[in-house]
């Protein structure tokens, strides 16, 4: 069975050459600008209102463009960026602890296990500094010290304190800043807001992205909307696993539909499994909740030394506990990057030393921190997280250690974009988690907020002008054949889902798909398992299209219909993820292939054969996808095997 074919490599990423420090400056200077008077004649659709989409829509509106912003939630303020807890990195070096743009760049390239583009990452590190300034000016209430200056902390794998935070609600505060800036533009008339609308297809005219097909989630009406450029800021696809830390509505539909229209999908198998989540409590579980990684700054991770130890944690003496992260990784200890911490937890649970229901959990213990810092100091830092944990589990972390287990959290893969954040479809730009860039094979803590806002506030608004200034944009209307066809295809698909009238619910399929993905394309992947997964996914997908039952009608608020469309797209994505994971026979970052490990069981990269971005082309429904490689060159960060020991 041929699972994929290989096409031409990607020739041009538009990444500038020359000294890396001045690449972004030079690129901006060389980009064409749109005259301020002409900007209001240029229309941009932005799909998604999280950090990347909300910030982009607000900034483009401020610049004078005519922006149309879409989100599926009832308000742009609800986008899932809001749930990010820990913080946002920036190379301010306010702590005078040796941080710099160069170091943030270095840490991010290395943390991403050398699978990201150096030029992009350097720019991200440069722009990080401006983000903090911008957010403070908007009134984002970051944590401060008694002198009134901003506080910082060290976070997930960093040896400097460069993370800015707002208690355990940094994402919320940053998103509200972007949301408020967006609402200011709505009031100013530059942004048209369309909440409770879901993008169901992309309209491509003469090879350029010119519009979208949307469904009004209240009335069910399917309409088309047009622009000179389309920005997808629709987030990641972690919900392909059914259980993840994503919001229930998070989905791949916008980017997947664009992929089917010609946009390459890059590194879909690079998935981040976050080490500190609350373990599943039963079959009814509908989502998993993250406990901020900042907890690892003061909490110590351990399991009993003895397999299946039945004792309560408090009854297990110190010398019978295995603080395995501190033992295996003495220099980073509990602060090793996410991929390493997650796999280590899986390994100890696989050995039978896991705790809690089903043995799928490890302890995160604050007893030492309380002794060292005092109860009050620990409560001030983590109080809201402790409360959240207690609300969900019914256990107080002050009394018994928390139990945590890894869960799907973030997807590094996404639509392929060049240095301008433009996809392989001209006029289609992709920002934030929806694109693949910057994080390589593993994202460091507090870097998602940084990238979302970098793309939205500073990168895209500068790069999109080059496209808008050069193109001619013939008006496109709802009667254009490409628009009619796209709308018709969406209507047909909706009707088809409703007409199956089978005997299984959408959720039952989604759960089963998620289980396949978790078992075979989760923390550890093998050739055999991935081949099996592809077979299982295909079989289940066929069954879905024969047996799914979607109640209600098309012309109404119908949440089951919304879910059905999203799950149908997850089926197609799931197969591509497995193909990508199967073809990449190395281990790197969030992608661990059991066949490729060091004698100590650490991930073993293969730079010679896999030092590239795998960008996949949709070749049709029953045709294998086509692989296009973007070679990665490392001129500034020396290729090395990651070691946190």
């Amino acid at each position, binding site marked *: 069975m041929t699972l994929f074919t290989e096409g031409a490599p990607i020739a041009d990423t538009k990444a500038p050459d020359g000294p890396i420090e001045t690449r972004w400056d030079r690129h901006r200077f060389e980009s064409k600008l749109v005259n301020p008077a002409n900007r209001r004649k240029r229309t941009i659709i932005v799909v998604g209102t999280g950090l990347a989409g909300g910030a982009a829509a607000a900034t483009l509106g401020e610049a004078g463009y005519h922006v149309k912003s879409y989100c599926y939630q009832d308000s742009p303020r609800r986008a899932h960026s809001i749930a990010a807890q820990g913080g946002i990195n920036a190379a301010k070096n306010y702590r005078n602890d040796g941080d710099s743009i160069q170091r943030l760049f270095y840490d991010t390239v290395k943390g991403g296990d050398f699978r990201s583009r150096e030029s992009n990452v350097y720019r991200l590190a440069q722009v990080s500094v401006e983000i903090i300034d911008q957010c403070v000016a908007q*009134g984002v209430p970051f944590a401060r010290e008694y002198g009134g200056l901003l506080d910082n902390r060290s976070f997930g794998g960093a040896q400097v304190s460069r993370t800015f935070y707002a208690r355990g609600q940094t994402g919320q505060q940053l998103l509200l800043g972007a949301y*408020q800036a967006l*609402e200011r533009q709505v009031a100013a008339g530059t942004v048209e807001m369309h909440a409770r609308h879901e993008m169901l297809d992309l309209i491509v005219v003469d090879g350029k992205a010119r519009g979208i097909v949307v469904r009004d989630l209240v009335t069910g009406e399917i309409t088309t909307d047009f622009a000179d450029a389309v920005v997808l800021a629709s987030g990641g696809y972690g919900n392909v696993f059914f259980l993840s830390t994503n919001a229930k509505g998070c989905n791949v539909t916008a980017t997947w539909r664009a992929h089917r229209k010609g946009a390459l999908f890059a590194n879909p198998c690079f998935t981040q499994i976050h080490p500190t989540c609350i373990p599943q409590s039963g079959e009814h579980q509908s989502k998993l909740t993250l406990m901020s990684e900042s907890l690892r700054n003061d909490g110590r991770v351990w399991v009993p030394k003895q397999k299946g130890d039945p004792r309560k944690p408090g009854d297990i003496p110190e010398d019978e506990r295995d603080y395995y992260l501190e033992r295996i990784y003495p220099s980073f200890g509990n602060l090793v990057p996410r991929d390493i911490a997650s796999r280590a937890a899986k390994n100890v649970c696989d050995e039978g030393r896991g705790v809690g229901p089903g043995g799928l959990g490890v302890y995160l213990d604050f007893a030492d921190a309380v002794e060292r810092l005092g109860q009050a100091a620990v409560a001030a830092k983590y109080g809201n997280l402790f409360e959240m944990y207690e609300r969900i589990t019914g256990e107080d972390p002050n009394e018994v250690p928390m139990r945590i287990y890894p869960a799907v959290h973030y997807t590094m893969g996404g639509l392929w974009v060049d240095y301008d954040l433009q996809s392989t479809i001209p006029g289609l730009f992709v920002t934030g988690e929806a694109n693949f860039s910057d994080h390589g094979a593993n994202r460091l803590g507090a870097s998602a907020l940084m990238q979302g806002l970098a793309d939205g506030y500073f990168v895209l608004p500068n790069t999109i002008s080059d496209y808008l200034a050069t193109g001619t944009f013939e008006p496109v209307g709802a009667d254009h054949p490409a628009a009619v066809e796209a709308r018709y295809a969406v209507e047909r698909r909706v009707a088809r889902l409703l007409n199956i009238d089978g005997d299984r*619910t959408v959720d039952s399929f989604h759960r089963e798909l998620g289980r396949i993905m978790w078992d075979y394309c989760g923390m550890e992947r093998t050739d055999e398992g991935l081949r099996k997964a592809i077979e299982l996914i295909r079989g289940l997908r066929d069954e879905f299209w024969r047996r799914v039952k979607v109640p209600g009608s098309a012309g109404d608020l119908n949440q*089951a219909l919304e879910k059905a469309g999203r799950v149908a797209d997850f089926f197609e994505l799931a197969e591509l993820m497995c193909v990508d994971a199967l073809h990449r026979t190395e281990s790197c970052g969030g992608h661990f292939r059991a066949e490729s490990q060091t004698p100590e069981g650490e991930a073993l990269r293969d730079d010679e054969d896999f030092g590239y971005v795998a960008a996949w082309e949709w070749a049709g429904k029953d045709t294998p996808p086509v692989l296009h490689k973007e070679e990665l060159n490392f001129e500034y960060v020396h290729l090395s095997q990651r070691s946190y020991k």
Partner: protein
Amino acid sequence: MNLTLRIWRQPGPEDKGRMVKYRVEDVSPDMSFLEMLDMLNETLTLDGDEPIAFDHDCREGICGMCSLMINGSAHGPERATTTCQLHMRHFDDGDTIDIEPWRARAFPVVKDLVVDRSAFDKIIQAGGYISASTGTAPDAHAAPVPKADADAAFEAATCIGCGACVAACPNGSAMLFTAAKVTHLGLLPQGQPERRERVLNMVEAHDDAGFGGCTNTGECTAVCPKGIPLTAIGQLNRDFLKASTTSSR
């Protein structure tokens, strides 16, 4: 445990709604309230009935999308807890639970338990922001903020915009929501230039959206999942008074 649910069903905004009784069996105490409703919806779907529409998204108490009146209390019986974070261990076997949508003039019902809260966005549009266009910001350390002010601003800024305050208020007032934003921005040095216009414009938008006036009953703060204190409304009133007497409007 086994429960009886009485749930508000309303096909559309113009239709008449009614309470409908359902039985749910084998509910696990570890389920969240919404997972219990998921279970009911699975059964309804397979039985050929239309599932119950309710708003939800993050299911971790931060997006503000979930919104249910549970036994007459916004977000249910637990203090400082959103519906999605409420777990069934707080109910007993055999209980009857009433589930209704937010009820307020400014929040019309869309379907079943889903309401339209876009009036909140209109209040923010009227001035719930600091005008700082991208790229215009000075260095983040240019204006130190006393820690006490920063902490108080943060407390007010934790509002998730769920609308429980409105649903609980006998007047259907959104004063706690409005006051939280006025307080958050008004405590920061960056928020000073627009402070007076902000409070006047936001209160005007609040009234225009059909929210009622505040009579200090305090139901809002009692149900607020983020514990926004009533003192925020005091702050709004002080700012409003000051602005009204000095504004050129």
